[in-house]
């Protein structure tokens, strides 16, 4: 089965020495992959590389088998992402922001898609409010809704539970599980190991710009196991 999104031996270094190095990762349809790591581990950089926001210095990123630079626009229409900041303009209402996002992604039934996603993320009461007047958590909900409303086949979310309240976290969890069940390939980064363990088929640990190991989502005391993997990697690097 062709990976929906694949990174093959990709490296991208910054002048300060940070970056990602020789990374290979595949997102397969129906699979949720969680990316975990400490701050500065390179999670956001990897996601930026996978979405074409940064070009690799070596290696390759493939969307449905096509190099990113030449991937058809029809393939990009089936990608949903939220990296760092939500696509939510403060001067527009939540509904208008979702309409804008849907139009840019070529959704045909815009009103229907917006109504559905407003209901999915319990945003109906905020639909006519400007985003600048929303709380941080509700702004994040609008961003997540904008990333998911077109039922993407590839979903990339960078710490999507940031600022979400417990109800928002549960809604997002259910949404991702349903979408993966429908065949979407999902990559999600998070600091909340217990949270990702509930939804991920695979948990990948990142440290110092490299994918260093996998965590079994079913393992008890997953945080302890995570820190042990990172500690071993740091010790290896310091030797």
């Amino acid at each position, binding site marked *: 089965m062709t990976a929906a999104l694949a990174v093959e031996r990709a490296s991208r270094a*910054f002048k300060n020495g940070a970056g990602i190095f020789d990374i290979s990762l595949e997102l397969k349809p129906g699979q949720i992959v969680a990316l975990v790591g400490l701050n500065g581990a390179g999670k956001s950089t990897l996601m*930026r590389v996978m*979405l*074409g*926001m*940064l*070009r690799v210095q070596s290696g390759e990123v493939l969307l449905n088998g096509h190099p990113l630079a030449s991937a058809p*626009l*029809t393939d*990009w*229409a089936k*990608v949903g*992402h*939220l*990296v*760092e*900041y*939500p*696509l*939510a*303009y*403060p*001067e*527009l209402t939540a509904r*208008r922001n979702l309409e*804008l*996002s849907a*139009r*840019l*992604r*070529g959704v045909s039934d815009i009103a229907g898609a917006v109504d559905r996603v407003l209901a999915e993320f319990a945003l109906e009461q905020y639909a006519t409010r400007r985003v600048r007047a929303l709380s941080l958590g509700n702004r994040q909900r609008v*961003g997540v809704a*904008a990333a998911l409303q077109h039922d993407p086949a590839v979903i*990339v979310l960078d710490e999507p539970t940031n600022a979400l309240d417990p109800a928002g976290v549960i809604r997002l969890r259910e949404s991702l599980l349903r979408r993966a069940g429908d065949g979407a390939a999902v990559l999600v980064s998070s600091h909340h190991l217990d949270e990702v363990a509930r939804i991920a088929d695979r948990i990948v640990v990142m440290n110092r710009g490299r994918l260093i190991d996998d965590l079994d989502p079913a393992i008890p005391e997953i945080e302890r196991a995570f820190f042990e993997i990172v500690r071993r990697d740091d010790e290896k690097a310091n030797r």
Partner: protein
Amino acid sequence: MRAAIWAEVVKLAFSTVGRVGSAAIVVGISVLSGSLLLAAATTHDPQLLAKLGPVAAGDWQGFLLGAAQVSGAGGLGGSAVVLAWMFGREFGDGTISGLFALPVRRSTIALAKLTVYLMWAVVMSVLLAIALAVVGTIAGLGQIDAHTWVMLERQWALGVMSAAITLPVAWAATLSRSVLGGVSVAIGLVIVAQVSVLAGLGGWMPLAAPALWAISLGTAVSPVQLALLIPFGAVFTTLTALSWRRMQLDR
């Protein structure tokens, strides 16, 4: 392209910058020009009348020449701020990351921004010409004759051409990734335009040609010199689109 244009229209229409910029250009310039007319009508100070220049004549031609002088610098500055915001805000608000990985190319988004900006400039220039006609009529300048219509049309053209010469601002806001970077270049454009007139470059300098053309009633700038605005605008449109196409979020 249609989706990107729709998005840019919505963003500009609902923004504070768009509303304030529109009001500053239409209401600000017409009120300022009307104030100059009022000052000319009520003063007997020869020094002040001399400073008011053509407005002191107290007729349509003097009034519209004064408006052209005001909009030559003020209108250019106001338009440039709006353009700087349209591009720079995506970086300031962090929404630029959401404009990647879409079925709309980033170069298309940049061209949509420029298209909407020029459409906005056309509409603002029409509204400003209408507002000036209303202000002049209220001030008792008499009926609008054929010569005045030509001057109003020239005022409209000045507004559109002033918007065209601000296109480097879009590129500057893109490269600097900030509204402020674009605004800084806008200030630089106004200064370069003024200095180039003093240096005698006149109509051959695209930044100065539109205002010179309007203020001289079309005599000081040739059609060829005005036509230089086309390659000038095309170069900066291309540079901006290429910068958006090649953009990386690496800083």
